């Protein structure tokens, strides 16, 4: 009984200390923010249905001078190096844009790219954003463009493909041999900061934080250069799954082995206990 009382006291003070330095301290260091919003509801949704055929003509007329759509045979108009020096950053290929980005976000982005990406602290009239505003298009035309982009996606892109299109223009993933399409010197010039390598980001930031952060970086870090890229909920979870797969590759092995190690020690403890009881029966 006495031993259990002492054990309870030790556990109590250990638990209080743990609670104070881990959950409590971290809740104080990272104040709570609103959860991720995948509907991007501050942007006015379109109230018209798009026509993919009209969209095709609009895309050909307005987008292809900068963007490629490799899945339908439009190659990127410039090499990555030339594009980076011409625009500051390599423009994305639009093959999967229709599913990678949330529909509402895509429409809002076409109308007001700087507002949608939340980069007004980086770009203005003196330093214009590489993507021009298409606010001169009507709502119907914007809906047509979005409908076309959604229409051309034949197969669901892999986790890695989503990462490459959505993140890989600026970020490297060196533990999976991926180099950012935009050279890091160009990145620094473009956004005022180098984009970090994301290999270990899943361990340093954790999935829960990344889910809110990727959805709206500026909400989490004041003045950050990373744009809001407007991933849909499904594609964002693909990105996080990919980061998990690269940065914490042994997670499954760790969780499997954990049970065996705990089981082994539990059996050891049981045998040790029986041995102890048999020895102390004679001694005490």
């Amino acid at each position, binding site marked *: 009984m006495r*031993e259990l009382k002492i054990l309870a006291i030790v556990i109590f003070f250990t638990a209080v*200390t743990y609670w104070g*330095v881990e959950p*409590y301290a971290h809740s104080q*260091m990272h104040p709570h923010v609103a959860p991720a919003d995948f509907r991007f509801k501050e942007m006015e949704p379109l109230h018209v249905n798009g026509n993919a055929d009209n969209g095709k003509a609009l895309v050909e007329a307005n987008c292809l001078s900068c963007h490629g759509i490799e899945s339908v045979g439009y190659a990127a108009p410039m090499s990555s190096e030339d594009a980076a020096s011409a625009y500051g950053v390599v423009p994305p290929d639009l093959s999967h844009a229709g599913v990678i980005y949330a529909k509402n976000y895509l429409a809002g982005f076409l109308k007001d790219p700087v507002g949608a990406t939340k980069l007004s602290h980086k770009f203005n009239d003196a330093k214009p954003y590489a993507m021009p505003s298409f606010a001169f298009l009507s709502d119907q035309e914007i809906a047509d463009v979005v409908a076309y982009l959604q229409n051309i996606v034949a197969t669901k892109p892999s986790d890695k493909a989503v990462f490459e299109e959505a993140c890989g223009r600026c970020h490297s993933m060196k533990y999976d041999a991926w180099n950012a399409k935009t050279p890091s010197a160009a990145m620094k010039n473009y956004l005022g900061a180098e984009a970090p390598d994301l290999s270990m980001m899943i361990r340093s930031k954790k999935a829960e934080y990344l889910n809110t952060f990727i959805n709206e970086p500026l909400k989490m870090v004041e003045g950050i250069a990373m744009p809001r890229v407007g991933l849909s909920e499904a594609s964002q979870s693909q990105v996080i799954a990919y980061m998990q797969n690269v940065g914490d590759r042994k997670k499954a092995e*760790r*969780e499997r082995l954990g049970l065996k190690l705990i089981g082994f020690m*539990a059996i050891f403890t049981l045998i040790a206990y029986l*041995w102890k009881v048999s*020895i102390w029966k004679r001694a005490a």
Partner: protein
Amino acid sequence: MAQIKKAEGFIDWLDQRLAVKAFMRVMMSEYWIPKNINFLWAMGVVLIALFAVLLVTGLLLLMYYKPDVNLAFDSVNYTIMQEVEYGWLWRHMHGVAASATFLIIYIHLFTAIYYGSYKKGREMIWLTGMVLFVAFSAEAFSGYMLPWGQMSYWAAQVITNLFSGIPVIGDEVVIWIRGDYVVADATLTRFFMLHVVLLPLVILAVIAVHFYSLRFPHVNNQDSVELDFEAEAQKYKEGRIKESRVVPFWPVFLSKDFFVVGFFMTFFFFLVCYHFDFAMDPINFEPANSMKTPAHIYPEWYFLWNYEVLRGFFFDIGGIAAMDIGLIAFVFANVVFFLLPFLDRNAMNTAPAHKRPAFFVWFWLLIVDMIVLTVYGKLPPTGVNAWVGFFAAVLFLGLFIALPILTKWEAKKGEKA
């Protein structure tokens, strides 16, 4: 020269040359431990088990680690964590065992304080134990630098900078420690040397002295009764086992320790595989970047109370700069535990704290205060947090200033009674 005869077997052959039987008697089967102890007396053996884990996993990690600022981070996080078979396991065990070692050291240390095991002939055990605490602290600090993550770099920057508080030569000392004007490759390489060679050698040597210093005053017991170990051992050897108040280290004492070690290691492996963030801070999985100061810089949890004593003094008092007061308090906090046997002026009273009402209050105030310091050492030092830290730091200093007075008063009261 001993009489060497034809050996009756391998043990006898060894015994004639190395006296292994006598050695085993002295170290194991006739090393007498009091019976009236509780599981807190197993913490020493738990620490040995953890140290063995650290040593073995450390050797395995050493085969792939690269002490170079350009290679260190990837050698840990890619080569060891992803490419080497079970490399992640050795790293997780190493990191969690380091943290767990400090938890057990603190339990071990407060057990010694509670049961008065630091005085009346046991001063050398206490002092060598404190040397071990300091050596383990240096070992942990140098080890934390090796993965070359953000907190490796910034903790090193902040902690090495503390030495600039030394009067006159401070700035030169900082450069001497770092081997450069800032924390850089030279710093990493020398802390690597400390972590894998010099400090482990010191720790091994001091552990030996710590054990040796235990043999003469003997292990204390939970009622702090004085035992005549020779008489009690005699009873045991004569077969009056139940009557004897001592048991041999092997197998009786260790049988209980094995159980406690097993119980603890079961929990340990749960932490290693499922709950390791407390010991392997996520922020250190971000590569060191001298251009990007983290929003919050804090040491590992086991240094937080100490860090808060330093940080608690955040305003100038009587014309002395806050930083200087903090540094003086910090040095005081690091030295004062060494002095405990001499600050206790009631040296002959070794009763456990619950039989010494004033000391009992002092003990639990110290525990609560150190937990408050630990928690507030991690919280951002703003607003009311800064003041809680200040008062907790003042209370910490006050407790040790009050100890001689309190124990002297207790001794006087004891004489009268």
